[in-house]
Protein backbone atom coordinates (compact mmCIF):
# COMPACT_ATOMS: atom_id res chain seq x y z
CA UNK A 1 0.00 0.00 0.00
CA UNK A 2 1.31 3.43 -0.86
CA UNK A 3 0.43 6.86 0.32
CA UNK A 4 -0.03 8.09 3.82
CA UNK A 5 -1.81 5.78 6.17
CA UNK A 6 -3.53 6.67 9.37
CA UNK A 7 -2.41 5.04 12.53
CA UNK A 8 -5.00 3.55 14.86
CA UNK A 9 -4.49 6.35 17.34
CA UNK A 10 -5.71 8.97 14.89
CA UNK A 11 -8.94 7.09 14.34
CA UNK A 12 -9.85 6.73 17.98
CA UNK A 13 -13.53 7.51 17.65
CA UNK A 14 -15.54 6.18 20.58
CA UNK A 15 -17.72 3.30 19.48
CA UNK A 16 -21.33 4.49 19.49
CA UNK A 17 -24.00 2.19 20.89
CA UNK A 18 -26.92 2.72 18.56
CA UNK A 19 -28.92 -0.44 19.21
CA UNK A 20 -32.27 -0.28 20.99
CA UNK A 21 -32.08 -1.08 24.67
CA UNK A 22 -35.68 -1.34 25.82
CA UNK A 23 -34.86 -2.15 29.42
CA UNK A 24 -32.85 0.94 30.07
CA UNK A 25 -34.82 2.99 32.68
CA UNK A 26 -35.80 5.88 30.46
CA UNK A 27 -36.81 3.68 27.55
CA UNK A 28 -38.87 1.57 29.92
CA UNK A 29 -40.56 4.65 31.34
CA UNK A 30 -41.42 5.91 27.88
CA UNK A 31 -42.82 2.51 26.94
CA UNK A 32 -45.00 2.32 30.05
CA UNK A 33 -46.33 5.83 29.59
CA UNK A 34 -47.14 5.21 25.93
CA UNK A 35 -48.98 2.04 26.88
CA UNK A 36 -50.85 3.96 29.57
CA UNK A 37 -52.00 6.62 27.12
CA UNK A 38 -53.17 3.94 24.67
CA UNK A 39 -55.10 2.18 27.41
CA UNK A 40 -56.79 5.39 28.54
CA UNK A 41 -57.76 6.26 24.98
CA UNK A 42 -59.28 2.81 24.47
CA UNK A 43 -61.20 2.94 27.76
CA UNK A 44 -62.55 6.37 26.85
CA UNK A 45 -63.69 5.06 23.46
CA UNK A 46 -65.50 2.02 24.87
CA UNK A 47 -68.74 3.77 25.93
CA UNK A 48 -68.77 5.81 22.74
CA UNK A 49 -68.30 2.85 20.44
CA UNK A 50 -70.68 0.62 22.39
CA UNK A 51 -73.46 3.22 22.22
CA UNK A 52 -72.98 3.52 18.48
CA UNK A 53 -72.85 -0.25 18.17
CA UNK A 54 -76.07 -0.73 20.10
CA UNK A 55 -77.74 1.97 18.03
CA UNK A 56 -76.60 0.44 14.77
CA UNK A 57 -77.62 -3.10 15.74
CA UNK A 58 -80.89 -2.52 17.57
CA UNK A 59 -81.96 0.61 15.71
CA UNK A 60 -80.77 -0.63 12.35
CA UNK A 61 -82.88 -3.80 12.70
CA UNK A 62 -86.12 -1.81 12.80
CA UNK A 63 -85.09 0.83 10.26
CA UNK A 64 -87.05 0.80 7.03
CA UNK A 65 -88.62 3.27 4.66
CA UNK A 66 -91.99 2.95 6.41
CA UNK A 67 -90.80 4.32 9.77
CA UNK A 68 -90.12 7.67 8.06
CA UNK A 69 -93.58 8.02 6.60
CA UNK A 70 -95.87 6.46 9.18
CA UNK A 71 -97.36 7.84 12.36
CA UNK A 72 -96.49 6.49 15.81
CA UNK A 73 -98.50 3.39 16.78
CA UNK A 74 -100.81 3.38 19.75
CA UNK A 75 -100.80 0.72 22.48
CA UNK A 76 -100.80 -2.82 21.09
CA UNK A 77 -100.83 -1.63 17.48
CA UNK A 78 -98.03 -3.10 15.35
CA UNK A 79 -95.90 -1.34 12.75
CA UNK A 80 -95.99 2.41 12.54
CA UNK A 81 -93.14 4.87 12.52
CA UNK A 82 -92.04 8.30 13.61
CA UNK A 83 -92.39 10.43 10.46
CA UNK A 84 -94.19 13.21 12.31
CA UNK A 85 -91.55 13.27 15.05
CA UNK A 86 -88.75 13.62 12.50
CA UNK A 87 -90.59 16.50 10.84
CA UNK A 88 -91.26 18.07 14.24
CA UNK A 89 -87.62 17.88 15.27
CA UNK A 90 -86.42 19.38 11.99
CA UNK A 91 -89.00 22.17 12.14
CA UNK A 92 -88.38 23.05 15.78
CA UNK A 93 -84.59 22.88 15.56
CA UNK A 94 -84.76 24.89 12.33
CA UNK A 95 -87.00 27.53 13.88
CA UNK A 96 -84.80 27.59 16.94
CA UNK A 97 -81.77 28.11 14.71
CA UNK A 98 -83.47 30.92 12.81
CA UNK A 99 -84.14 32.62 16.13
CA UNK A 100 -80.81 31.99 17.80
CA UNK A 101 -78.09 31.96 15.12
CA UNK A 102 -78.40 35.54 13.80
CA UNK A 103 -78.90 36.84 17.33
CA UNK A 104 -75.95 34.85 18.63
CA UNK A 105 -73.60 35.91 15.82
CA UNK A 106 -74.52 39.58 16.16
CA UNK A 107 -74.00 39.33 19.89
CA UNK A 108 -70.60 37.71 19.27
CA UNK A 109 -69.66 40.54 16.90
CA UNK A 110 -70.43 42.99 19.67
CA UNK A 111 -68.46 41.00 22.25
CA UNK A 112 -65.44 40.45 20.02
CA UNK A 113 -65.25 43.66 18.06
CA UNK A 114 -67.46 46.55 19.04
CA UNK A 115 -67.26 46.75 22.78
CA UNK A 116 -65.17 43.89 24.11
CA UNK A 117 -64.34 45.63 27.36
CA UNK A 118 -67.64 47.39 27.93
CA UNK A 119 -69.77 46.57 30.94
CA UNK A 120 -72.55 45.33 28.70
CA UNK A 121 -70.11 42.90 27.08
CA UNK A 122 -68.83 41.67 30.43
CA UNK A 123 -72.40 41.10 31.58
CA UNK A 124 -73.44 39.37 28.36
CA UNK A 125 -70.39 37.13 28.38
CA UNK A 126 -71.00 36.18 31.98
CA UNK A 127 -74.65 35.46 31.25
CA UNK A 128 -73.77 33.33 28.22
CA UNK A 129 -71.24 31.31 30.19
CA UNK A 130 -73.75 30.73 32.94
CA UNK A 131 -76.47 29.77 30.48
CA UNK A 132 -74.30 27.12 28.78
CA UNK A 133 -74.31 25.24 32.05
CA UNK A 134 -77.99 25.81 32.73
CA UNK A 135 -80.13 22.68 33.13
CA UNK A 136 -82.06 22.46 29.89
CA UNK A 137 -85.33 21.92 31.70
CA UNK A 138 -85.19 25.55 32.83
CA UNK A 139 -85.29 26.66 29.19
CA UNK A 140 -88.45 24.58 28.88
CA UNK A 141 -89.99 26.18 31.96
CA UNK A 142 -89.13 29.61 30.59
CA UNK A 143 -90.73 28.92 27.21
CA UNK A 144 -93.72 27.36 28.99
CA UNK A 145 -94.28 30.60 30.87
CA UNK A 146 -93.48 32.84 27.93
CA UNK A 147 -95.38 31.07 25.15
CA UNK A 148 -97.50 28.14 26.33
CA UNK A 149 -99.28 30.06 29.09
CA UNK A 150 -99.75 33.11 26.86
CA UNK A 151 -101.03 31.28 23.79
CA UNK A 152 -102.85 28.65 25.81
CA UNK A 153 -101.47 25.69 23.89
CA UNK A 154 -98.40 23.53 23.58
CA UNK A 155 -96.88 24.31 20.20
CA UNK A 156 -93.90 24.07 17.87
CA UNK A 157 -92.94 27.75 18.31
CA UNK A 158 -92.85 27.24 22.08
CA UNK A 159 -90.52 24.28 21.60
CA UNK A 160 -88.42 26.29 19.15
CA UNK A 161 -88.08 29.13 21.65
CA UNK A 162 -86.94 26.72 24.36
CA UNK A 163 -84.34 25.26 22.00
CA UNK A 164 -83.26 28.75 20.89
CA UNK A 165 -82.62 29.74 24.51
CA UNK A 166 -80.34 26.71 24.77
CA UNK A 167 -78.58 27.45 21.49
CA UNK A 168 -77.82 31.15 21.89
CA UNK A 169 -75.06 30.88 24.52
CA UNK A 170 -73.17 28.21 22.58
CA UNK A 171 -73.39 30.22 19.37
CA UNK A 172 -72.34 33.43 21.12
CA UNK A 173 -69.31 31.99 22.89
CA UNK A 174 -67.93 29.96 19.99
CA UNK A 175 -68.57 32.73 17.44
CA UNK A 176 -66.85 35.23 19.73
CA UNK A 177 -63.78 33.00 19.93
CA UNK A 178 -63.82 32.48 16.17
CA UNK A 179 -63.98 36.22 15.47
CA UNK A 180 -61.28 36.93 18.03
CA UNK A 181 -59.08 34.31 16.38
CA UNK A 182 -58.94 36.30 13.13
CA UNK A 183 -55.32 37.52 13.13
CA UNK A 184 -54.67 41.16 13.97
CA UNK A 185 -52.75 41.58 10.73
CA UNK A 186 -55.89 40.67 8.79
CA UNK A 187 -57.82 43.36 10.63
CA UNK A 188 -54.99 45.82 9.95
CA UNK A 189 -55.13 44.96 6.27
CA UNK A 190 -58.85 45.67 6.16
CA UNK A 191 -58.59 48.97 8.00
CA UNK A 192 -55.54 49.85 5.91
CA UNK A 193 -57.59 49.39 2.75
CA UNK A 194 -59.99 52.03 4.02
CA UNK A 195 -62.76 49.82 5.35
CA UNK A 196 -65.24 51.28 7.75
CA UNK A 197 -65.80 49.31 10.91
CA UNK A 198 -68.90 47.63 9.53
CA UNK A 199 -67.09 46.77 6.30
CA UNK A 200 -64.29 45.20 8.31
CA UNK A 201 -66.87 43.11 10.13
CA UNK A 202 -69.00 42.06 7.16
CA UNK A 203 -66.40 41.72 4.44
CA UNK A 204 -63.41 40.40 6.36
CA UNK A 205 -64.00 39.27 9.93
CA UNK A 206 -67.19 37.25 9.48
CA UNK A 207 -66.10 35.50 6.26
CA UNK A 208 -62.71 34.67 7.77
CA UNK A 209 -64.27 33.42 11.00
CA UNK A 210 -67.07 31.52 9.23
CA UNK A 211 -65.67 27.98 9.63
CA UNK A 212 -65.32 28.54 13.37
CA UNK A 213 -68.75 30.11 13.64
CA UNK A 214 -70.31 27.18 11.77
CA UNK A 215 -68.68 24.79 14.20
CA UNK A 216 -70.39 26.62 17.04
CA UNK A 217 -73.72 26.59 15.24
CA UNK A 218 -73.39 22.86 14.66
CA UNK A 219 -72.60 22.21 18.30
CA UNK A 220 -75.70 24.15 19.22
CA UNK A 221 -77.90 22.40 16.64
CA UNK A 222 -76.62 18.98 17.68
CA UNK A 223 -77.35 19.71 21.30
CA UNK A 224 -80.78 21.12 20.57
CA UNK A 225 -81.78 18.17 18.39
CA UNK A 226 -81.15 15.77 21.25
CA UNK A 227 -82.86 17.77 24.00
CA UNK A 228 -85.94 16.20 25.56
CA UNK A 229 -86.65 18.08 28.76
CA UNK A 230 -87.33 21.53 27.28
CA UNK A 231 -89.74 20.02 24.75
CA UNK A 232 -91.80 18.13 27.36
CA UNK A 233 -93.00 21.47 28.70
CA UNK A 234 -93.44 23.25 25.44
CA UNK A 235 -94.16 21.08 22.42
CA UNK A 236 -95.30 18.01 24.32
CA UNK A 237 -96.03 15.24 21.84
CA UNK A 238 -98.48 14.43 19.14
CA UNK A 239 -99.48 11.36 17.22
CA UNK A 240 -100.44 13.41 14.20
CA UNK A 241 -98.69 15.21 11.38
CA UNK A 242 -97.43 18.77 11.83
CA UNK A 243 -98.50 19.53 8.27
CA UNK A 244 -102.11 19.05 7.38
CA UNK A 245 -102.42 18.86 3.60
CA UNK A 246 -99.22 20.89 3.20
CA UNK A 247 -100.34 23.62 5.62
CA UNK A 248 -98.27 23.72 8.81
CA UNK A 249 -100.39 23.48 11.94
CA UNK A 250 -97.84 25.06 14.26
CA UNK A 251 -100.08 26.04 17.15
CA UNK A 252 -100.71 22.57 18.46
CA UNK A 253 -98.72 19.96 20.38
CA UNK A 254 -95.85 18.79 18.19
CA UNK A 255 -93.97 15.52 18.11
CA UNK A 256 -90.19 15.31 18.26
CA UNK A 257 -87.72 12.44 18.03
CA UNK A 258 -86.29 13.11 21.47
CA UNK A 259 -89.67 13.03 23.21
CA UNK A 260 -90.72 10.01 21.15
CA UNK A 261 -87.62 8.15 22.32
CA UNK A 262 -88.35 9.20 25.89
CA UNK A 263 -91.97 8.10 25.72
CA UNK A 264 -91.55 4.86 23.78
CA UNK A 265 -88.45 3.55 25.53
CA UNK A 266 -90.41 3.33 28.78
CA UNK A 267 -93.39 1.50 27.32
CA UNK A 268 -94.05 -2.20 27.94
CA UNK A 269 -94.57 -2.84 24.21
CA UNK A 270 -91.81 -4.43 22.11
CA UNK A 271 -92.90 -2.55 18.98
CA UNK A 272 -92.56 0.86 20.61
CA UNK A 273 -89.20 -0.01 22.15
CA UNK A 274 -87.90 -1.08 18.76
CA UNK A 275 -89.15 2.20 17.28
CA UNK A 276 -87.38 4.13 20.04
CA UNK A 277 -84.12 2.45 19.06
CA UNK A 278 -84.65 3.24 15.39
CA UNK A 279 -85.53 6.84 16.23
CA UNK A 280 -82.32 7.13 18.28
CA UNK A 281 -80.29 5.94 15.32
CA UNK A 282 -82.06 8.41 13.02
CA UNK A 283 -81.41 11.26 15.46
CA UNK A 284 -77.70 10.44 15.60
CA UNK A 285 -77.52 10.17 11.82
CA UNK A 286 -79.34 13.51 11.47
CA UNK A 287 -76.75 15.23 13.65
CA UNK A 288 -73.99 13.48 11.75
CA UNK A 289 -75.33 14.65 8.38
CA UNK A 290 -75.66 18.27 9.54
CA UNK A 291 -72.15 18.06 10.92
CA UNK A 292 -70.68 16.79 7.67
CA UNK A 293 -72.52 19.45 5.66
CA UNK A 294 -71.24 22.23 7.89
CA UNK A 295 -67.71 20.93 7.57
CA UNK A 296 -67.97 20.90 3.80
CA UNK A 297 -69.32 24.45 3.78
CA UNK A 298 -66.57 25.51 6.17
CA UNK A 299 -63.84 23.98 4.03
CA UNK A 300 -65.13 25.60 0.89
CA UNK A 301 -64.88 29.02 2.45
CA UNK A 302 -61.47 28.59 4.03
Amino acid at each position, binding site marked *: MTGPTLSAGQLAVPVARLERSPFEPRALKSLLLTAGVWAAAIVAAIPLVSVLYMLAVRGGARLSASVFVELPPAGFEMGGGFGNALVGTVVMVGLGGVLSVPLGILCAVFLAELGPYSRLAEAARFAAKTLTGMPSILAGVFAYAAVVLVTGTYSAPAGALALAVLMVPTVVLTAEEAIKAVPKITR*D*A*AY*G*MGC*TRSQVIWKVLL*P*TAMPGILTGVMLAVARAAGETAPLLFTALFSSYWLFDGGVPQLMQPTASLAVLIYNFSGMPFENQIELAWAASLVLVLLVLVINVISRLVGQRR*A
Partner: protein
Amino acid sequence: MTPTVETMPRVNGRDTGAFGEPGVVIDCKLDQVFYGSFLAVRDSRVEVERGKITGFIGPSGCGKSTVLRSLNRMNDLIRGFRFEGHVRFHGKDVYGRNVDPVAVRRYIGMVFQQPNPFSMSIFDNVAFGLRLNRFKGNVAERVEQALRSAALWDEVKDKLKNSGLSLSGGQQQRLCIARAVATEPSVLLMDEPCSALDPIATRRIEELMLQLKQRYTIAIVTHNMQQAQRVADITAFFSVDISKGSRTGYLVEAGPTKQIFESPREQLTKEYVSGQFS
Protein backbone atom coordinates in the same frame (compact mmCIF):
# COMPACT_ATOMS: atom_id res chain seq x y z
CA MET B 1 -56.70 49.04 -26.99
CA THR B 2 -56.11 48.08 -23.40
CA PRO B 3 -55.31 51.06 -21.26
CA THR B 4 -51.74 51.27 -20.09
CA VAL B 5 -50.81 51.99 -16.52
CA GLU B 6 -50.45 55.66 -17.44
CA THR B 7 -53.86 56.09 -19.02
CA MET B 8 -55.89 54.19 -16.43
CA PRO B 9 -58.30 56.40 -14.58
CA ARG B 10 -57.55 56.71 -10.90
CA VAL B 11 -60.20 55.61 -8.46
CA ASN B 12 -59.18 58.14 -5.89
CA GLY B 13 -57.87 60.87 -8.15
CA ARG B 14 -54.37 61.38 -9.42
CA ASP B 15 -51.81 63.58 -7.72
CA THR B 16 -52.31 66.70 -9.69
CA GLY B 17 -50.41 68.88 -7.31
CA ALA B 18 -53.38 71.18 -7.43
CA PHE B 19 -53.03 72.14 -3.81
CA GLY B 20 -50.20 72.25 -1.30
CA GLU B 21 -46.59 73.05 -1.97
CA PRO B 22 -45.32 71.52 -5.18
CA GLY B 23 -43.51 68.28 -4.64
CA VAL B 24 -44.45 67.71 -1.02
CA VAL B 25 -47.28 65.21 -0.70
CA ILE B 26 -47.15 64.73 3.04
CA ASP B 27 -45.78 67.20 5.49
CA CYS B 28 -45.83 65.63 8.90
CA LYS B 29 -44.93 67.30 12.13
CA LEU B 30 -45.12 65.18 15.23
CA ASP B 31 -44.79 67.23 18.39
CA GLN B 32 -45.81 64.49 20.77
CA VAL B 33 -47.25 61.06 20.14
CA PHE B 34 -48.46 59.04 23.09
CA TYR B 35 -49.62 55.51 23.70
CA GLY B 36 -51.47 55.98 26.95
CA SER B 37 -49.00 57.86 29.14
CA PHE B 38 -46.00 56.59 27.18
CA LEU B 39 -44.41 59.28 25.01
CA ALA B 40 -43.44 57.31 21.89
CA VAL B 41 -42.24 60.04 19.54
CA ARG B 42 -41.46 63.74 19.96
CA ASP B 43 -40.32 66.70 17.89
CA SER B 44 -40.03 65.11 14.46
CA ARG B 45 -40.76 66.68 11.12
CA VAL B 46 -40.61 64.75 7.88
CA GLU B 47 -41.69 65.63 4.38
CA VAL B 48 -42.62 62.97 1.87
CA GLU B 49 -42.05 64.10 -1.69
CA ARG B 50 -43.98 63.09 -4.76
CA GLY B 51 -42.55 60.30 -6.87
CA LYS B 52 -39.77 59.58 -4.43
CA ILE B 53 -39.08 56.87 -1.90
CA THR B 54 -38.61 58.18 1.60
CA GLY B 55 -36.91 55.71 3.91
CA PHE B 56 -37.31 55.78 7.70
CA ILE B 57 -34.36 54.15 9.45
CA GLY B 58 -33.22 53.89 13.03
CA PRO B 59 -32.68 51.49 15.90
CA SER B 60 -35.48 49.42 17.45
CA GLY B 61 -37.98 51.47 19.40
CA CYS B 62 -37.07 54.74 17.72
CA GLY B 63 -40.66 55.29 16.67
CA LYS B 64 -40.19 54.98 12.92
CA SER B 65 -43.18 52.65 12.56
CA THR B 66 -45.25 54.88 14.81
CA VAL B 67 -44.47 57.83 12.54
CA LEU B 68 -45.37 55.85 9.43
CA ARG B 69 -48.62 54.54 10.88
CA SER B 70 -49.54 58.05 12.00
CA LEU B 71 -49.56 59.20 8.40
CA ASN B 72 -52.74 57.30 7.48
CA ARG B 73 -54.16 57.22 10.99
CA MET B 74 -53.66 53.49 11.45
CA ASN B 75 -52.60 54.24 15.02
CA ASP B 76 -56.14 55.38 15.76
CA LEU B 77 -56.94 51.68 16.14
CA ILE B 78 -54.59 51.41 19.12
CA ARG B 79 -56.14 52.14 22.47
CA GLY B 80 -54.63 55.16 24.18
CA PHE B 81 -53.05 56.64 21.05
CA ARG B 82 -52.83 60.43 21.18
CA PHE B 83 -51.33 62.69 18.53
CA GLU B 84 -50.13 66.26 18.79
CA GLY B 85 -48.89 67.92 15.66
CA HIS B 86 -50.13 67.73 12.11
CA VAL B 87 -49.97 65.54 9.04
CA ARG B 88 -50.70 67.69 6.02
CA PHE B 89 -51.66 65.60 3.04
CA HIS B 90 -51.68 67.97 0.09
CA GLY B 91 -51.99 70.75 2.59
CA LYS B 92 -54.94 69.24 4.43
CA ASP B 93 -54.41 68.05 7.98
CA VAL B 94 -55.51 64.43 8.22
CA TYR B 95 -55.90 64.93 11.97
CA GLY B 96 -58.14 67.94 11.37
CA ARG B 97 -61.72 68.13 12.54
CA ASN B 98 -64.28 66.52 10.24
CA VAL B 99 -61.64 64.27 8.70
CA ASP B 100 -62.72 60.66 8.39
CA PRO B 101 -59.76 58.34 9.03
CA VAL B 102 -61.39 55.79 6.73
CA ALA B 103 -61.21 58.24 3.83
CA VAL B 104 -57.59 59.04 4.66
CA ARG B 105 -56.67 55.37 4.35
CA ARG B 106 -58.23 55.16 0.91
CA TYR B 107 -55.80 57.81 -0.34
CA ILE B 108 -52.81 56.60 1.64
CA GLY B 109 -52.46 52.84 1.21
CA MET B 110 -50.42 50.54 3.35
CA VAL B 111 -48.30 47.39 3.09
CA PHE B 112 -47.48 45.67 6.35
CA GLN B 113 -44.59 43.81 7.88
CA GLN B 114 -46.25 40.40 7.74
CA PRO B 115 -47.87 39.57 4.41
CA ASN B 116 -51.58 39.66 5.23
CA PRO B 117 -53.74 38.65 2.29
CA PHE B 118 -57.40 38.06 3.10
CA SER B 119 -58.60 34.50 3.22
CA MET B 120 -60.22 34.80 -0.20
CA SER B 121 -59.13 34.22 -3.77
CA ILE B 122 -56.20 36.05 -5.34
CA PHE B 123 -58.61 37.89 -7.62
CA ASP B 124 -60.91 38.91 -4.78
CA ASN B 125 -57.95 40.14 -2.74
CA VAL B 126 -56.95 42.56 -5.47
CA ALA B 127 -60.53 43.50 -6.31
CA PHE B 128 -61.29 44.13 -2.64
CA GLY B 129 -60.43 47.83 -2.64
CA LEU B 130 -62.14 48.39 -5.99
CA ARG B 131 -65.38 46.91 -4.72
CA LEU B 132 -65.02 48.89 -1.52
CA ASN B 133 -64.86 52.06 -3.57
CA ARG B 134 -67.72 50.93 -5.84
CA PHE B 135 -65.41 51.04 -8.83
CA LYS B 136 -67.54 51.28 -11.96
CA GLY B 137 -65.05 50.23 -14.62
CA ASN B 138 -63.76 46.86 -15.70
CA VAL B 139 -62.70 45.15 -12.48
CA ALA B 140 -60.93 42.25 -14.17
CA GLU B 141 -58.81 44.62 -16.19
CA ARG B 142 -57.83 46.61 -13.16
CA VAL B 143 -56.98 43.47 -11.23
CA GLU B 144 -54.69 42.39 -14.04
CA GLN B 145 -53.03 45.79 -14.17
CA ALA B 146 -52.49 45.82 -10.43
CA LEU B 147 -51.04 42.30 -10.47
CA ARG B 148 -48.78 43.29 -13.36
CA SER B 149 -47.54 46.37 -11.58
CA ALA B 150 -46.83 44.19 -8.55
CA ALA B 151 -44.81 41.84 -10.80
CA LEU B 152 -47.06 38.94 -9.84
CA TRP B 153 -49.30 38.51 -12.87
CA ASP B 154 -47.25 35.88 -14.69
CA GLU B 155 -47.07 33.70 -11.61
CA VAL B 156 -50.77 33.78 -10.73
CA LYS B 157 -52.66 34.43 -13.97
CA ASP B 158 -53.71 30.76 -14.22
CA LYS B 159 -54.82 30.44 -10.61
CA LEU B 160 -56.66 33.64 -9.81
CA LYS B 161 -59.36 31.59 -8.08
CA ASN B 162 -56.91 30.01 -5.63
CA SER B 163 -56.73 31.35 -2.11
CA GLY B 164 -54.34 34.23 -1.58
CA LEU B 165 -53.00 32.29 1.37
CA SER B 166 -51.79 29.49 -0.90
CA LEU B 167 -48.96 31.67 -2.24
CA SER B 168 -45.41 31.81 -0.88
CA GLY B 169 -44.45 34.58 1.54
CA GLY B 170 -42.84 36.75 -1.10
CA GLN B 171 -45.77 36.26 -3.48
CA GLN B 172 -48.21 37.06 -0.67
CA GLN B 173 -46.38 40.32 -0.04
CA ARG B 174 -46.54 41.21 -3.74
CA LEU B 175 -50.24 40.32 -3.65
CA CYS B 176 -50.65 42.77 -0.78
CA ILE B 177 -48.86 45.40 -2.85
CA ALA B 178 -51.18 44.67 -5.78
CA ARG B 179 -54.16 44.95 -3.45
CA ALA B 180 -52.88 48.30 -2.19
CA VAL B 181 -52.15 49.77 -5.63
CA ALA B 182 -55.33 48.49 -7.30
CA THR B 183 -57.23 51.55 -6.08
CA GLU B 184 -54.40 53.84 -7.12
CA PRO B 185 -53.74 55.53 -3.80
CA SER B 186 -51.50 58.55 -4.06
CA VAL B 187 -49.15 57.40 -1.31
CA LEU B 188 -48.03 53.90 -0.39
CA LEU B 189 -46.75 53.32 3.13
CA MET B 190 -44.61 50.23 3.64
CA ASP B 191 -43.84 49.09 7.16
CA GLU B 192 -40.76 46.86 6.97
CA PRO B 193 -42.28 45.04 3.98
CA CYS B 194 -39.35 42.65 3.60
CA SER B 195 -38.55 41.73 7.17
CA ALA B 196 -40.47 38.45 6.93
CA LEU B 197 -39.02 37.54 3.52
CA ASP B 198 -35.93 35.74 2.28
CA PRO B 199 -33.19 37.63 0.37
CA ILE B 200 -34.48 36.71 -3.09
CA ALA B 201 -38.04 37.78 -2.34
CA THR B 202 -36.64 40.92 -0.70
CA ARG B 203 -34.74 41.74 -3.86
CA ARG B 204 -37.88 41.40 -5.95
CA ILE B 205 -39.84 43.70 -3.67
CA GLU B 206 -37.04 46.26 -3.82
CA GLU B 207 -37.01 46.18 -7.62
CA LEU B 208 -40.75 46.53 -7.53
CA MET B 209 -40.54 49.60 -5.30
CA LEU B 210 -38.19 51.27 -7.76
CA GLN B 211 -40.75 50.65 -10.52
CA LEU B 212 -43.69 51.76 -8.42
CA LYS B 213 -42.14 55.08 -7.47
CA GLN B 214 -42.66 56.31 -11.00
CA ARG B 215 -46.32 56.27 -10.25
CA TYR B 216 -46.69 56.37 -6.48
CA THR B 217 -45.13 58.25 -3.68
CA ILE B 218 -43.65 55.74 -1.26
CA ALA B 219 -42.62 55.92 2.37
CA ILE B 220 -40.89 52.87 3.77
CA VAL B 221 -39.76 51.85 7.22
CA THR B 222 -36.78 49.56 7.16
CA HIS B 223 -34.51 48.06 9.72
CA ASN B 224 -32.00 47.31 7.01
CA MET B 225 -29.60 50.13 6.17
CA GLN B 226 -28.47 48.52 2.93
CA GLN B 227 -32.08 48.41 1.84
CA ALA B 228 -32.49 52.11 2.56
CA GLN B 229 -29.36 52.82 0.52
CA ARG B 230 -30.62 50.69 -2.35
CA VAL B 231 -34.13 52.10 -2.64
CA ALA B 232 -34.59 55.38 -0.77
CA ASP B 233 -34.13 58.77 -2.36
CA ILE B 234 -34.60 60.55 0.93
CA THR B 235 -33.67 59.02 4.27
CA ALA B 236 -34.91 60.06 7.67
CA PHE B 237 -32.90 58.80 10.61
CA PHE B 238 -34.64 58.40 13.96
CA SER B 239 -33.10 57.58 17.28
CA VAL B 240 -34.20 56.81 20.81
CA ASP B 241 -33.85 59.24 23.66
CA ILE B 242 -33.45 57.34 26.92
CA SER B 243 -32.31 60.34 28.96
CA LYS B 244 -35.60 60.83 30.80
CA GLY B 245 -35.92 57.23 31.92
CA SER B 246 -38.32 56.44 29.09
CA ARG B 247 -37.71 55.48 25.47
CA THR B 248 -38.85 58.27 23.22
CA GLY B 249 -38.11 58.33 19.51
CA TYR B 250 -37.22 61.48 17.64
CA LEU B 251 -35.92 62.51 14.26
CA VAL B 252 -32.18 63.07 14.23
CA GLU B 253 -31.87 64.22 10.66
CA ALA B 254 -33.34 63.74 7.22
CA GLY B 255 -31.92 64.40 3.80
CA PRO B 256 -30.91 62.85 0.51
CA THR B 257 -29.90 59.24 1.13
CA LYS B 258 -26.38 59.76 -0.24
CA GLN B 259 -25.78 62.61 2.14
CA ILE B 260 -27.16 60.77 5.16
CA PHE B 261 -24.91 57.81 4.55
CA GLU B 262 -21.78 59.59 3.34
CA SER B 263 -21.66 62.94 5.06
CA PRO B 264 -24.25 63.12 7.82
CA ARG B 265 -24.50 66.33 9.76
CA GLU B 266 -25.01 64.65 13.10
CA GLN B 267 -22.47 62.55 14.94
CA LEU B 268 -25.22 60.13 16.01
CA THR B 269 -26.19 59.47 12.39
CA LYS B 270 -22.58 58.88 11.51
CA GLU B 271 -22.23 56.31 14.28
CA TYR B 272 -25.44 54.55 13.28
CA VAL B 273 -24.80 54.33 9.54
CA SER B 274 -21.25 53.12 10.15
CA GLY B 275 -22.68 50.31 12.26
CA GLN B 276 -21.40 51.46 15.64
CA PHE B 277 -24.79 50.85 17.26
CA SER B 278 -28.10 49.51 16.19
